[in-house]
């Protein structure tokens, strides 16, 4: 009896949360939301920037039909604006000046003439206003009882190609509105957060005679050389507790997957096939997903590090490279068109490791470098379409994609 119940339960939860099933929420079945600005700060440009960011964040939540119009009202007005009287939720906020060039932001949400949510936020500088908007959207999402969107508050780190042999390592928010160059003047690629706290990261420096894997501690600004090796060295993944790294290294010109123990500084070679084995990712079942061309074309495989056995994971497509994993899901990039350089050559696919069901996530352009968010709710990726380089965000359970273009330069790789 217990077994039967457990089995039924697992079947129900599987189908309830299988993100490979297309989820299409009809637009008119989402509750409507309008924004009312009660800010008292003088700077009109700041007020408009804040409104646009908050509006965009609430739209990305994908749980409201967000009204686009901008309207102002007194924060203490007893009822919503006339044009909003039929709207399900009205989000009213007030940015006011505080001491020392800081700001207070008061937020309340009104539904059916009642205040259902209220909170105060402190903003220390206009430069980081977008993080306030992200925090408000996060809290509203939590209030509405939806799956957590922790990723909306996290920082992205990316390598931006400025010119040949010259890149910058930049930290940004998920919309690229906030950008801070951390390392410039060199040729640095493949940055990877070293921990959940996002206060350190690994990256590969190609400046010297040989590639070097480096570690930068943001608190101390200290840069440590982890390993210099001929050929290539890239940090592909970091274990959840930050104690181990999966590296792609090629000390003798032979690219293989290695595991590195941060404390003991010892390396362990995990693959030994004579072709290309790279891009390893830790999976929740203890196995490791990686990209290999052992069947002739690049494809996604899984390795059991205890037994050494390797299994093919993806059976569709002739060229599947780059992958990221979270829980039971794998996202990978696939070259779909048989024409070498067709318009929609590279697209992202989501696969469940439990059901083998696959869902295509993108439609046009060169879509690559997918990375699951820490909570698995979103996938971030790089989209290069014609001459535009953008960060894309896919809401895994909402069947929606959002794009945030980069003004100048090209994104080489990213992590969040």
């Amino acid at each position, binding site marked *: 009896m217990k077994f039967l119940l457990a089995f039924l339960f697992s079947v129900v939860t599987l189908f309830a949360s299988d993100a490979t099933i297309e989820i299409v929420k009809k637009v008119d079945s989402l509750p409507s939301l309008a924004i009312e600005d009660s800010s008292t700060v003088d700077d009109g440009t700041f007020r408009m920037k804040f409104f646009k960011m908050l509006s965009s964040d609430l739209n990305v939540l994908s749980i409201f039909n967000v009204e686009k119009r901008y309207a102002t009202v007194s924060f203490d007005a007893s009822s919503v604006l006339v044009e909003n009287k039929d709207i399900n939720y009205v989000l009213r906020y007030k940015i006011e000046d505080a001491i020392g060039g800081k700001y207070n932001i008061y937020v309340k949400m009104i539904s059916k003439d009642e205040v259902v949510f209220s*909170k*105060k*936020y*402190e903003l*220390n*500088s206009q*430069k*980081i206003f977008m*993080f*306030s908007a992200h*925090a408000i959207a996060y809290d509203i999402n939590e209030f509405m009882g939806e799956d957590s969107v922790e990723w909306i508050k996290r920082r992205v780190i990316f390598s931006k*190609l400025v010119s*040949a*042999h010259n*890149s910058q390592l930049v*930290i940004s928010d998920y919309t690229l509105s906030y950008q*801070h*160059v*951390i*390392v*410039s*003047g*060199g040729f640095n*690629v*493949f940055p990877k957060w070293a921990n959940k706290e996002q*206060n350190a990261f690994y990256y590969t420096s*190609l*400046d*010297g*005679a*040989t590639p070097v894997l480096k570690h930068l501690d*943001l608190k101390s*600004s200290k840069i440590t050389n982890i390993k210099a090796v001929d*050929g*290539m060295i*890239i940090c*592909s993944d970091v274990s959840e507790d930050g104690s181990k790294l999966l590296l*792609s290294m*090629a000390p003798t*010109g*032979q*690219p293989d997957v290695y595991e590195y123990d941060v404390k003991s500084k010892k390396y362990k070679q995990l693959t030994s096939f004579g072709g*290309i084995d*790279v*891009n390893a990712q830790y999976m929740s079942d203890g196995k490791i997903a990686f*990209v290999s061309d052992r069947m002739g074309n*690049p494809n996604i495989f899984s390795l059991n590090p205890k037994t050494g056995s390797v299994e093919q994971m993806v059976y569709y497509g002739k060229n599947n*490279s*780059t992958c990221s994993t979270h829980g039971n899901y794998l996202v990978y*990039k696939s070259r779909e068109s048989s024409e*070498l*350089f067709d318009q929609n*050559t*590279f697209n992202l696919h989501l696969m469940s490791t439990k059901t083998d069901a696959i869902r295509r996530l993108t439609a046009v352009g*060169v879509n*690559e*470098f997918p990375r699951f968010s820490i909570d698995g709710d979103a996938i971030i990726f*790089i989209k290069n379409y014609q001459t535009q380089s953008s960060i894309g965000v896919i809401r895994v359970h909402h069947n929606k994609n959002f794009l945030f273009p980069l003004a100048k330069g090209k994104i*080489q*790789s990213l992590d969040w």
Partner: protein
Amino acid sequence: MKSILFSGVVAAALLFSGCSSKDPKVEDDSGASAASSYSTTSSTPSSSSESVSGGLSEAELKAQLITRLEGELQTINFDFDKFNINAQNRSKVPANAGILKGEARGLTTKLEGNCDEWGSDEYNMALGLKRANEVKKALVAEGVDGSSITMVSYGENSPLCTEKTRECWAKNRRVDFKLLP
């Protein structure tokens, strides 16, 4: 309920501003020593004519040699998604090997593997490296000392051209030869 969310971010932002730019590695200052040796020889006029014409330092001479030889070494190009050396490029290997065994003897050869723009991910970096490795193997087969060769892959990150044409992509799929003192 107060929500003090940003002091951490601002503190971090302030930290970041303290390390926002890192200079690339500084080259050795052999240029300075060359200048001082030059000024020393020019202070003795009787022997100055011979010293001035031969007044370049060893480092400067090496740099000139490297520039000339790099101009003579031929770039090897590759087919899409492939790392084997095709028929059209095979003849470049013995020609390059001749230079490396001859005038370039004593210098380190750096093979730089490159790809076209179709993917900046790890697989492409590895493909660039496999290209460099195939060239290394071919050079060793021609008698070049393997220990004098280092390799790096730049993937798609070091393009010669950026037009979205097949000709440009073909140009970027390559292994370049660089020489190090």
